[in-house]
């Protein structure tokens, strides 16, 4: 499959956006600038970026608690994402959602779910609507290896298959659910092997290779738009940081070998892609450096935007509860 130069470049840009965003979130969290959990996506950037660049704006995505990478990959506003994490009125969700619940409906992001596995049925339903309304949008849901053991995944994959829905199930297999390893929790070698149980293709992809993720997704999107039904894509990846901010300090290293972490850090998705772009002569080393730096500037702007945004006030408390409001009980 031919990937245009433009997209190859965009891949690097979006991955840097996520990487720098996450580094910044870690930094300002340590500085105490916001309260609440957050789950860094560092190391896994190629998965969301590869998938989302194979989508149109009119396609939908839904995600999980490891929640910053998906909307940023889909082209959601960086400023609003940061403001949301800061709990401010200019955030995606006006400060109501926070890190685990980023959502930008304006660009097809149906939202991240803090309850593991819980957005899988929802995304399946968006696919159902696509079919019913005879639209050609597809619906993608990101979930982890841990989530794959939730009943919700089973039920949704079966539904999507029998109804031939344009849904793409993307398992981000980073091989751990907090401290519990893949081997201790999933009974099958690869999550994608489970696709046979639903009579759909199951594709195992190197999740550090953004182009491979893109290609697998593009293929699945084609099938979906052709009415051929769902696909399960497993991106094999690794989180470079701890499960969540805060937890990091307590648990670092106690369940993962340093050697394993080092091995995976050598397969940094940004390095891998940068090298390819330079080798192919698409970008020079300094072009790449510029992308990295421009992104840092953009993130800095986002932080400033967030810092300058207001906290929601008492008058905002009940805002957004109901579409057709009811009296306070």
């Amino acid at each position, binding site marked *: 499959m031919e990937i245009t130069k433009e997209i190859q470049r965009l891949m690097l840009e979006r991955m840097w956006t996520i990487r720098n965003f996450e580094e910044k979130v870690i930094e300002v969290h340590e500085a105490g600038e916001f309260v609440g959990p957050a789950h860094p996506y560092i190391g896994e950037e190629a998965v969301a970026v590869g998938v989302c660049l194979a989508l149109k704006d009119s396609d939908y995505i839904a995600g999980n608690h490891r929640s910053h990478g998906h909307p940023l990959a889909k082209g959601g506003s960086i400023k609003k994402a940061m403001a949301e994490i800061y709990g401010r009125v200019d955030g995606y969700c006006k400060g109501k*959602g926070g890190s685990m619940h980023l959502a930008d409906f304006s660009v097809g992001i149906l939202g991240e*779910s803090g*309850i593991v596995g819980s957005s899988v049925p929802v995304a399946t339903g*968006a696919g159902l609507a696509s079919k019913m309304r005879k639209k050609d949008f597809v619906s993608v849901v990101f979930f982890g290896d841990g989530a794959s053991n939730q009943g919700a995944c089973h*039920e949704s994959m079966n*539904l999507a298959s029998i109804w031939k829905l344009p849904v793409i199930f993307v398992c981000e297999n980073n091989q751990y659910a907090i401290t519990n390893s893949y081997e201790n929790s999933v009974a099958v070698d690869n999550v994608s092997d489970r696709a046979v149980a639903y009579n759909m293709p199951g594709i195992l992809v190197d999740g550090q290779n953004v182009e491979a993720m893109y290609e697998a997704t593009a293929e699945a999107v084609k099938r979906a738009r052709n009415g051929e039904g769902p696909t399960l894509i497993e991106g094999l990846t690794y989180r470079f940081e701890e499960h969540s901010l805060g937890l990091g300090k307590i648990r670092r290293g106690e369940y993962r070998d340093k050697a394993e972490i080092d091995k995976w850090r050598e397969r940094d998705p940004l390095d891998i892609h940068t090298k390819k772009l330079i080798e192919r002569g698409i970008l020079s080393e300094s072009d790449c450096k510029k992308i990295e730096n421009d992104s840092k500037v953009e993130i800095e702007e986002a932080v400033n935007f967030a810092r300058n945004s207001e906290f929601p006030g008492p008058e905002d408390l009940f805002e957004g509860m109901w579409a057709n409001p009811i009296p306070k009980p």
Partner: protein
Amino acid sequence: MTEKIFADAINEAIAEEMRRDPNVFIMGEDIRLSIYGATKNLYKEFGEERVLDTPLSENGFFGAAIGASLVGMRPIVETVTSFMWVAMDQLISQAAKMRYMFGGQATLPVVYRASMAYGSGSAAHHSDRNYPMFMNMPGIKIAVPATSADAKGLLKTAVRDDDPVIIFEDTNLMGTRGDVTDDEIPFGKAVIIKEGSDCTIVGIAGSVKLALDAANNLEKEGISCEVINPRTLVPLDKQSILSSVEKTGRLVIADPAHKVCSAASEISSIVAEEGFWFLQSPIIKVASEQVHIPYAQSLEKLVYPNVDKISTAVKKTME
């Protein structure tokens, strides 16, 4: 105004809403052959694209309805209260919470029709009357129709409302008759089905009729009861209840749910806080015994509110 049985009133509301709006569709188990009685002929009229028989995956398809509603559809989901347990995550984590969590971006016009099949030997696994749990969690509107008119009018309102709604359909009413109109019935407006001056009786779902029967009996004994059908529990028309208690000074609540943390508990607590000075005697809850639903008819009939229990309670408030 035409007379309809309750189940047909539901059927008519669904059909009318599906005709009106092509985005309305219905999904559930065995609905094409209408085994629960309220989806007759829909398959014939609307076809397989808009009348979906689902696999036994309630969490999956309840959630799929939510997802579909997010992007333009208006699903009606048919189920039974007792099958909601397997799907609680989608009902609570998604249907109830999503809109607020996303700062008002999400709009979820999804309707769940949950039948409460109690009273005829279905035992503990099939007899839930679990609306109080959904009252505790904000985010879902709750309708409890008590007549054919309610059944039709509240369902039409539910389909047009942009928030998630659960309609708890009392199967003890399925065969009852009553006049229906073509109008929507607004949420949050209680109806006084009988005026009276001595004691207010609030009934819920199937207990409305019991309350009315009790009131009619008591009238013969010279006790004048005002009977209120709240129609929806979220929103709850507390003002109508408070005004009635202001007039009568007494309150009995008849609620088929388990009595602890019931709708009756909630209504009692509202009046104990906001209507305390109106009260001339204790507020009495006539709700289901705090026990599971036993299979044997000799036991099951002891559990729920009935005309006798309500009458006794009213008399107690008059002592």
